[in-house]
């Protein structure tokens, strides 16, 4: 996928999701059975790590570009502008009414087609988004692009034509090495995302955002959206709520309440 269109430096594409602010309580629209997207749309915090990582890798490589790819309804660019203000160079936004209801595989098809236009050396994503958190999009993208992938990266180092990753595991981490180009998904906390500077925010306003439709990507409408998905939500129900129990103010004897509680359960 590496092409001659780039002449020098490291070219990274970061997938960034633009999501409703998780600080505002989420809800599902009972009519469309999708996440309500009203309210403030932001750059998914999980993706701010990928953006920061990409910027740092390009700096270490002595130059290059960080391009963004996002799929979002309604021509949304607010989250993209945040990432551009951090220092990314340009973005592709795929926005199209036929994408309503797209599942993770459909999302991956769209993102993969958009990424391919950039012929990057490296593709970064988060391990999972904050709102849908299926966590399957990174490896789906990699398979569709015919690339190797390393998920759950807690550190990334470029070494010539390959990438070395510390990959999180259940009991520690693995050192993984993989030739470029590749898809790598990063965990939260891998780097400290920078705050956009005033200068960055001003500059972001004039950075190019290319708006594309599904047809522009050469995909057909029946591969995506409600039609393209192999699943449908049939029920949304409140789960059995856990009741609050006894709440006591600690006046110095709070610890004894805990000891009694554990004794009654016969666990001590």
């Amino acid at each position, binding site marked *: 996928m590496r092409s001659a269109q780039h002449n020098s430096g490291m070219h990274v594409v970061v997938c960034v999701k633009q999501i409703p602010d998780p600080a505002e309580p989420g809800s599902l629209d009972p009519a469309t059975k999708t996440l309500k997207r009203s309210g403030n749309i932001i750059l998914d915090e999980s993706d701010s790590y990928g953006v920061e990582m990409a910027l740092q890798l390009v700096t270490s490589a002595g130059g290059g570009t960080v391009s963004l790819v996002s799929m979002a309804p309604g021509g949304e660019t607010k989250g993209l502008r945040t990432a551009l203000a951090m220092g990314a160079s340009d973005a592709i936004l795929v926005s199209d009414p036929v994408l309503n209801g797209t*599942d*993770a*595989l459909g999302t991956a098809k769209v993102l993969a087609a958009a990424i391919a236009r950039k012929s990057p050396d490296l593709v970064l994503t988060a391990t999972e988004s904050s709102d849908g*958190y*299926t*966590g*399957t999009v*990174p*490896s*789906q993208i*990699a*398979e*569709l692009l*015919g*690339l*190797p*992938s*390393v*998920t759950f990266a*807690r550190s990334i180092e470029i070494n010539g034509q390959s990438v070395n990753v510390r*990959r*999180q595991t259940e*009991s*520690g*981490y*693995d050192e*993984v*090495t*993989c030739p470029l180009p590749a898809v790598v998904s990063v*965990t939260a*906390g891998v780097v400290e995302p920078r705050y956009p500077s005033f200068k960055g925010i001003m500059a972001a306003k004039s950075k190019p955002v290319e708006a594309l439709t599904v047809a522009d990507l050469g995909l057909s409408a029946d591969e995506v959206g409600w039609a393209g*998905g*192999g*699943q449908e*939500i*049939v*029920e*949304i*129900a*409140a*789960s059995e*709520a*856990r009741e*609050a*129990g006894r*709440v*006591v*103010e*600690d006046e*110095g004897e*709070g*610890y*004894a*309440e*805990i*000891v009694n*509680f554990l004794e009654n*359960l016969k*666990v*001590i």
Partner: protein
Amino acid sequence: MALDNVWVFAEAADGRVKTITLEMLAKAREIADEVSCFYAGAGDDVAETLGEHGASTVFATGDLDDALLGPPVAAAIAAKIAADGAPDLIMFGTTYDGRDVAGRLSAKLGAPVITNVADLIVNGEDVAGVEPVFGGSTNVTTRFKGEAVKIVLVRPKSFAAESAGGSVADVEDLDVPEVGNTGTAKVTARFMEETSGPKLEEAAIVVSGGRGLGEAAKYAMVEQLAKLLKAAPGASRAIVDAGWVPYSYQVGQTGKVVKPTVYLACGISGATQHMVGMKGAKYIIAINKDKEAPIFSIADLGIVGDVHKVMPKLIEALQGR
């Protein structure tokens, strides 16, 4: 209401079949007449345990030469489907490798994945997954439609692992197709950073600490308490991100799902992403200085107080026993 045939992606660590695999097998044999497993390694290592838990056959890839599992295992499963037809359902655990293989397979087959599944509903040939969202306050049921292969990713602790008293499973070695460029990610070294004491996912008691502890050094109180209670120490993401404890301690949506008898939360607010990982505990105890903290809404016993006062006294009382 049963399916004919379900496949389960089996995983093992340190020579032991993972609990998540046994949990899935318990559900698989309830919903299907025949259950088979896929295993990335030597089938003989796991045939006894998988058989005991209800698998009739283990399809094994053999040694994969330290490749990350996604590409070769997905290719092996796809080849098996091309040769012998698809099962009614393929189950993966929500693990690091489970997600990789499921994602790769999904893209290969053009098949949907229903993720974060905490329960499965089978109705004739129809399969639906139940997924808890918003910290577990809402359940979304999603049904497969269409003809594609059905893939689910199952959350740990969704089903109870139980022996079926089955005999050793048959082992069938698979040919792993050449995966070329996609399969070039290789593990060069493995590092362990697990603590001593019981494992977080298996401990009967979990003591977790959050940002309310104030500083990294105070996590020692959590560890001390855990030791006294023979519990596993856990953490909120806030203090993992702050670097106080390793990621392997994290409980929640992006960490581990725990289901102990007792969960003791110290200085943890109770964000939805934390609660989704621990609200399956039988009993929840919380210490928090803010009486409005959301954690109290699900705690069986809530102590409104300062962790720096309550925890040292609790430690002292337990030491004196």
